[in-house]
């Protein structure tokens, strides 16, 4: 029994790393653009399908395929932001962007259904099935690689935000749009590029998700509800919070799965509700600086 629990914790942490990848993109988008990108779930699935096509058609290794899918998703993200989100202004902006991204998610989901059909797919590679036996625990290779990838990408995002001029612009825009504009930052460009980065990260998340789960276009809903719970728990806009919350929630779910697999996901929602009652800003959320 104890063995099961420890294994569940280990699994949870590793899977949490993968979810962190997807959640970080989402929370970054919120922090800079003040919008909740509901399409993130289906974009992850899109990333998975892209990896799938590359893997099946030209037999490209999954991780190598990222070199193509990540830039591709970046471009898709920039296009979405530029075409639909940029023009939303005014008081209703937050609600409107949420609905717009929901609409975009529907369109992408519909298109994926038309192209790939509803049958579940999964990404395959030699290392997907095998695992390494360490200290009596099974650590599957794919999760290890995925966790490592997550750390690398999150570190890269941190470096981007805190070590580059662009990152400085992003952080300034996060603080105050008007002030950022006043010191010459092109807020629109920052917004578009940040959205692109947030979506590009989903390419990696998608590949990982597709390698570890069977997926079809409908899988986006499940994902987005988890991701939303994660970023709210971690505090909207907090990257560290997203990482912490991902690991925490996935470990929790992993533990609950030992007793009841079907209800495990309720853990997410229940935790979300409980936290919101106690701390409406999540664990690491900033104080509400902006007015409603």
């Amino acid at each position: 029994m104890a063995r099961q629990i420890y294994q569940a914790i280990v699994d949870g942490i590793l899977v949490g790393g993968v979810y962190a990848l997807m959640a970080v993109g989402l929370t970054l988008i919120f922090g800079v653009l003040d919008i909740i990108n509901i399409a993130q779930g289906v974009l992850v699935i899109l990333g998975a399908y892209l990896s799938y096509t590359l893997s099946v058609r030209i037999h490209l290794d999954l991780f190598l395929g990222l070199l193509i899918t990540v830039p591709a998703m970046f471009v898709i993200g920039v296009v979405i932001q530029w075409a639909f989100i940029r023009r939303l202004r005014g008081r209703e902006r937050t609600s409107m962007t949420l609905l717009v991204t929901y609409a975009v998610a529907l369109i992408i989901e519909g298109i994926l259904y038309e192209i790939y059909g509803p049958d579940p797919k999964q990404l395959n590679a030699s290392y997907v099935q095998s695992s390494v036996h360490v200290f009596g625990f099974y650590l599957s290779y794919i999760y290890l690689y995925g966790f490592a990838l997550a750390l690398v990408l999150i570190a890269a995002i941190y470096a981007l935000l805190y070590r580059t001029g662009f990152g400085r612009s992003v952080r300034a825009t996060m603080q105050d749009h008007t002030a950022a504009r006043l010191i010459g930052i092109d807020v629109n460009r920052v917004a578009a590029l940040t959205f692109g980065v947030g979506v590009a990260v989903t390419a990696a998340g998608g590949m990982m998700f597709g390698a570890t789960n069977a997926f079809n276009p409908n899988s986006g809903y499940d994902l987005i509800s988890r991701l939303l719970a994660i970023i709210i728990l971690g505090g909207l806009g907090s990257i560290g919070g997203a990482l912490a919350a991902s690991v925490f929630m996935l470990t929790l779910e992993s533990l609950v799965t030992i007793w009841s697999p079907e209800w495990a996901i309720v853990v997410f929602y229940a935790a979300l509700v409980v936290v919101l009652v106690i701390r409406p800003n999540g664990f690491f959320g900033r104080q509400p600086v902006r007015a409603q």
Partner: protein
Amino acid sequence: MDTMSRQRAATGLALVALAVVAIVFPVVFSSPVVTNYAVYALIFIAVVTAWNMFSGFSGYISLGQAVFFGSGAYAVGIAAKAWHINGVGVFALLPLAAAVGAVIAVPFGLVALRVRRHTFIVVTIAVFFIFQLMAFNLNSFTGGTIGMSAPFLPWTPTAFNDRFYYITLACAVAAVVIAVLVRRSRFGLQLRAIKDDEDRARGLGVRAMRVKLAAFVLSATITGLVGGVWFLYLTQVLPQSGFDPLFDLSLVLMAFLGGLGTISGPIIGALLIEPGQLYLTIRYTNGYLSEILLGALFLLIVIFLPRGIVPTVGEWLRRLRTRGRPAVAPVQTSTRAETRA
């Protein structure tokens, strides 16, 4: 004022004409296929109006209306099975559906309405998924993936549809009447003030939580009732049909298209979108075209008609009427110094 009474007379006349058309409709178009469309349109009119009553007025967009709709449906199904009710008696269960909606809305609202607007939307989504999951998992209670069936009603197809037409018509009319009453009341005023500036409203003595919760519960009650009616009409409910994310998005879309916060907006939105959507669902049962079109339509509306049809048309009419008038009204003399700021 002559224009006022003329306007009132015109509105009154329009309403009477509308009432006549509505009542006579199934007699003229007696084919069950046509009345089917009408029933669905009316169901949506009722639910969108109920949704708008809370979300449109207060600005708190809820993507969890299906929670009440599906719960109402399941409530009727479960009660009918548990209490062995058959035949026309099932209609007596409809108040139960409404009550279930209200009862769920209270704790739901107490938790969800404490947070800011964007978090609120997410919480409604989360609760929606919880309910869908419960419908799938609580097999013995909800029938799991098989769902629940409604008791058999010994009516002919035409009579069935006609009767449900009048029932849903009654629901829609009731919903609209309640919406009008709310909008005209002080309660409605406070809701709209909350939408504009909640903190300021609080600072002026408005009990924001109470007002929001009351509207939320009212909206849920109506929706639960209509959910029950829908279940009896369709004669079955499944977890994915009672708790359908597309349902939620459709009704938000209809409200947006018509105009958030207006009375006629939801009606126009529902009448414009629902028939088309139903047609696509019937015609292309295996395709996902309706999803793509729904999403695309929504994007188009957001870009070109962000405020919805009713306010935009109202704006045009106002511009037409006030063409040629000076921008600033001339100063009125009064006993106190009038401002000319």
